[in-house]
């Protein structure tokens, strides 16, 4: 029986999700994919990296965004004919995610990986969030901005990520039912949260 497993990490900005994911993957000895996905997707498809970066985790649809509006009354071509819109880029990226998942156990951060791999039998979907004050501190330190600016940035980012996730997946971002495990990283801190996730994973996957 195939012993490979997948861990996906959804995370709020400033919750330490990326670091946690990276360390969990390192400790388990499995590949870690965050922004690396973009590089791989660009290589596989031949399209420039910047297109994936632009589309990354930003909802493409304001009322007038992402338009198919130029075609008169006749209904339209399927997505495969539009290479540079967010849907096709998302599809290319999710194909990459699936391919990497086939290669062996892996850990993915963001990009609706939990939805993309929902058919995968041995999958653990984690959502990492944190207290607002910790998030503000992290973001302000990392981005070298004031606390007020950080609050603004966080709120905007949460909206964008939720929009992206809610649009492309069929679930709701940050809601308990979308995941197997939701952890507030402020409670135990980064290192202990890592341990907890590893414990959960080892029990789930019988490692």
């Amino acid at each position, binding site marked *: 029986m195939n012993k490979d497993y997948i861990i996906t990490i959804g995370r709020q900005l400033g919750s330490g999700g990326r670091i946690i994911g990276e360390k969990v993957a390192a400790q388990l000895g499995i590949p870690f994919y965050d922004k690396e996905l973009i590089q791989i997707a660009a290589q596989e*498809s*031949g*399209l*420039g990296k910047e*297109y994936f970066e632009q589309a990354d985790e930003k909802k493409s*649809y304001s*009322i*007038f*965004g*992402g*338009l*198919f*509006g*130029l*075609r*008169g*009354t*006749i*209904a*339209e*071509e*399927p*997505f*495969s*004919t*539009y*290479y*540079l*819109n967010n*849907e096709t880029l*998302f*599809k290319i990226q*999710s194909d990459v995610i699936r391919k990497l998942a086939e290669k062996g156990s892996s850990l993915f951060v963001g990009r609706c990986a939990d*939805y*993309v791999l*929902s*058919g995968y039998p041995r999958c653990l979907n984690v959502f990492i969030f944190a207290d607002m004050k910790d998030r503000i501190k992290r973001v302000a330190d990392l981005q070298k901005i004031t606390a007020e600016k950080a609050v603004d940035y966080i709120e905007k980012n949460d909206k964008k990520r939720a929009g992206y996730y*809610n*649009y*492309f997946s*069929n679930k709701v971002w940050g809601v308990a039912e979308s995941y197997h495990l939701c952890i507030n990283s402020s409670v135990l801190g980064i290192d202990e949260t890592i341990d907890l996730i590893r414990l959960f994973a080892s029990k789930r996957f019988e490692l």
Partner: protein
Amino acid sequence: MVQKGSPIALGNESVWSLLLQYAIPSVIAMTAMSLYNITDSIFIGHGVGALAISGLAITFPLMNLSAAFGTLVGVGASALMSLRLGQKDYSTANKILGNVLVLNLIFGLAYTFVVLLFLDQILIFFGASSETLPYARDFMTIITLGNIVTHMYFGLNALMRATGNPKRSMYATIISVIINGMLAPLFIFGFKWGIRGAALATVIAQTSMLIWQFSYFRNKQNYIHFQKGSFRLKRKIVTDSMSIGLAPFLMNTAGSIIVIIINQNLIKHGGDLAVGAFGVINRVAALFAMVVFGLTQGMQPIAGYNFGAKQFDRVNTVMKLTVLLATAVMTVGFLISEIFPHAVASAFTTEEDLINIVVPGLRIVMIFFPIVGFQMVASTFFQSIGMAGKAIFMSLTRQVLFLLPCLLILPSIFGIKGVWYSMPSSDLLSSIIAAYLLVSQYRKSYVKQ
């Protein structure tokens, strides 16, 4: 195996063969649609009379509006469907199918009810006179009763495309045109049912295709088929579809409003026959424009992919090729209209009064047609590289932004000729803008390298 649409093919195969491969199905479907429109006008023109053509022309915006509502649901849902199918999320995809059917039913019934209730007032507002109203009313009553069929037919056709059956949806379009082409003359010339016969033929043609689509989607063997429970409306599906479909819907509505304004002006300055004349001219122009439209659809994936892959030489090649073909098509239309306008007009009617309005009108409207090909290609170029905003803007310049002020000013100075002058003026101005935007984009992209 190199699949259609795969990056390898788009990045490497001969641009010319790729263009043919993508454009031909599009062009065929578009041509079928405009042939349907033209043949209907021809049958009515010869079988019923010049005033009937005017009556028919009054109804165009109403029919466009109906199709726009169908698009509001269909375009958005098929986009959503593609997204879910791309993720192999078949259960949601099935729900989308069910939801589309129900939404189309609701919109269709609401539309039918409202339109039938206020039919006369609507038609008069659109430019019907006491002479043309009976024709318009007769035609529109039957079409509106069959409106639900129209909505569902377009909606399911869109979904057929999204589920990877573009050929099937193309056949549906072609066959419905053929059926209409056979029934309309039978009803109009054979049974002498007049303009009602034309409407009936259309509804029957669409109904038979709808039945065929139904049988396809009922087949449980297909990935996507009608399922119990998929008919309950899901808020997420409805709101997502409509927010995607809102933009094309608004574009369609804007186009319809423009036609209404044109017809109102024509009634004022030229009378009923002028409205009919515009109907004829519009159909002729649309024939060529739809072919070019199909070409630009074919160009989309090629230009888009290669632009993203920074293979700008291939982008150049496909652009040049498409502009060349588009201009050639439009020039044919231009030549036919300028050299043989009388023959063109006579195809639709034998009545001298109508012909005498069509001939000068056609000549004026088509004057800058050859450069419109370029304008359409440029607009689609921006869409294929992901700059939808610019693309929409360019489309609006030709259909609304320049046309509207021209229509408000020129007819008061030049009378009916003012209406005709508005169109080529709009063509010219929008093409200049298109050229400017295209050149600046080219400079930007090449300098970036």
